[in-house]
């Protein structure tokens, strides 16, 4: 593996029966990069991501994540990545603190470390007042931020975000992206799927998936030049129309 590439994918394929959800995709992601993984619904984004985080077996092809092979070393990968799903999965009937403690616990953090982390996290997000409230009583935007911070609790090398901004307002989305920048700035690689094209502009590089294949991969600027488009939305439409 090249030194500064934290994800290397070569010919990764997933078949469900006759249907090819992911068709021989090849790409790499550099350390500290914000990598946007774009595509329409059903293009195969989530399936590809599930293979990278070790909960779905590839049909063929190779992938190396954080220095480990997805086929043979999935358990090692799990220790080195964070994951946030589109459902912002936290436990509604647990308080903010209890959620943090629980997720810190399953990543094997020491009690002292968990305490440190949760104080820091609550301070950073300005959650002092609601630290002991049930998560279920908080607005969606807050849940989303907490969920993101929780996915970073064990200082993973890479964090995978699966449509992290679904259903929240533009202001909260903006704030959320500030959190992402901060994490990237601290050296965490961010792998994010989205179908908001304005968000694609925030990424260092983006790949666009159409029907299971990666049809374009470059910086937003170069993609716009290449497709002679005004914005990413335009790029996406041109690609999707074929």
């Amino acid at each position, binding site marked *: 593996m090249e030194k500064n590439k934290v994800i290397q994918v070569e010919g990764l394929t997933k078949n469900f029966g006759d249907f090819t959800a992911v068709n021989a995709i090849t790409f790499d992601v550099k350390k500290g990069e914000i990598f946007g993984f774009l595509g329409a619904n059903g293009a195969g984004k989530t399936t590809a991501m599930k293979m990278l985080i070790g909960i*779905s*077996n590839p049909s063929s092809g190779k992938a190396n994540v954080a220095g480990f092979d997805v086929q043979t070393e999935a358990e090692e990968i799990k220790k080195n990545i964070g994951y946030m799903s589109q459902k912002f999965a*936290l436990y*509604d*009937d*647990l308080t903010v603190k209890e959620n943090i403690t629980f997720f810190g616990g*399953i990543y094997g953090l020491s009690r002292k470390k968990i305490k440190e982390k949760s104080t820091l996290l609550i301070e950073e997000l300005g959650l002092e007042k609601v630290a002991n409230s049930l998560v279920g009583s908080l607005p969606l935007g807050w849940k989303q931020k907490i969920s993101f911070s929780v996915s970073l609790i064990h200082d993973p090398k890479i964090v995978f975000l699966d449509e992290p901004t679904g259903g929240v307002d533009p202001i909260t989305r903006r704030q959320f992206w500030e959190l992402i920048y901060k994490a990237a700035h601290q050296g965490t690689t961010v792998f994010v799927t989205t179908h908001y094209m304005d968000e694609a502009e925030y990424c260092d590089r983006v790949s666009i998936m159409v029907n299971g294949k990666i049809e374009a991969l470059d910086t937003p600027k170069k993609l716009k030049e290449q497709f002679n488009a005004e914005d990413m939305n335009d790029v996406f439409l041109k690609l999707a129309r074929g």
Partner: protein
Amino acid sequence: MKRFIGFIKKEFYHIFRDRRSLFILFGMPIAQILLFGFAITNEINNVDIAILDHSKDATTKEIINKISASKYFSINQFIEKEKDIEIVFKKGKVKAVLNFEKDFSKNLIKENNANIQVITDATDPNTANTISNYVNAILQNYLKEQNKGVVQAYKIIPQTHMVYNPELKSVYMFVPGVMTIILMLVSAMMTSISITKEKELGTMEILLVSPLKPFQVIIGKVFPYIFLSIINAIIIIVLSIFIFKMPVQGSLILLGLESILFIITALALGILISTISATQQTAMMISLMGLMLPVILLSGFIFPITSMPLPLQVISNIIPAKWFIIIIKGIMLKGVGLEFIWKETLILLGMTVFFIGLSVKKYKIRLE
């Protein structure tokens, strides 16, 4: 280990913060055992009867006194005419009428034969049957007392003994059944719901992406319910001993161990259900329809298995509850040890291993 404790703690938060599940866990067992114990009963007590006495002599009076002295019957009224019989039945309160023939005493002495008609209201066949049996028993008893010392030629007197439950208390039958239902419900339904809940919320995905192994997740989810089910079993046994005077003839330790085995069987079933259902509602429906009904209908809890048609008898063999009921009845009522119930125990054990094996196979370690 530390991860495991954290996981269990979280599980208890879920349980104790959800009033509904708390009620199912602890309210229902107590309510059910009290309901079954007090309200639903096959015994008869103070049944209202009417007397139509055509002879009104010493013998009939004695018999009537005997009947009214028993705790099973209370005499509601005396009627005078045959056609009143139907009237009292139609009013509904009286469940049986005793009709003594004319010259009852005289016939008995002269011809050694006197007739009494027992008419019962068979709109409820079980009660009617029980009433006529009880009346018969009281009459036999009376005759025996009268004939003391008299040697009769050629007479067969059956000496019936009801062993293990001489008073035919229905509580003895319901307690094992209710215990089985509750352990099945709490263990299988609650675990399957709590596992599918994580699937529905998406937290299962997060747990599977974490370094926790899938079997650790499942054990973490199931463990609290083992603990709560054991507490439930203890509550039921204590209630039945102290409130319903249910005996425990055999070893309490054996009873406890067998209960734990059955709890694990039910938990394995719960895990299996959670692997095939995507939502909490599906899990609940499958648990209720697929587990509760067979437990109630086919386990021999209410309807005796030997009087079922053959296909149902065969099916009843695959119901874990059937074997558990045999086991606890054996221990509680007959006081048997493992030497008499090892076969049933082995069957339960086999089923448990089978269910666990099947759910491990079904459980998709890597979510598709």
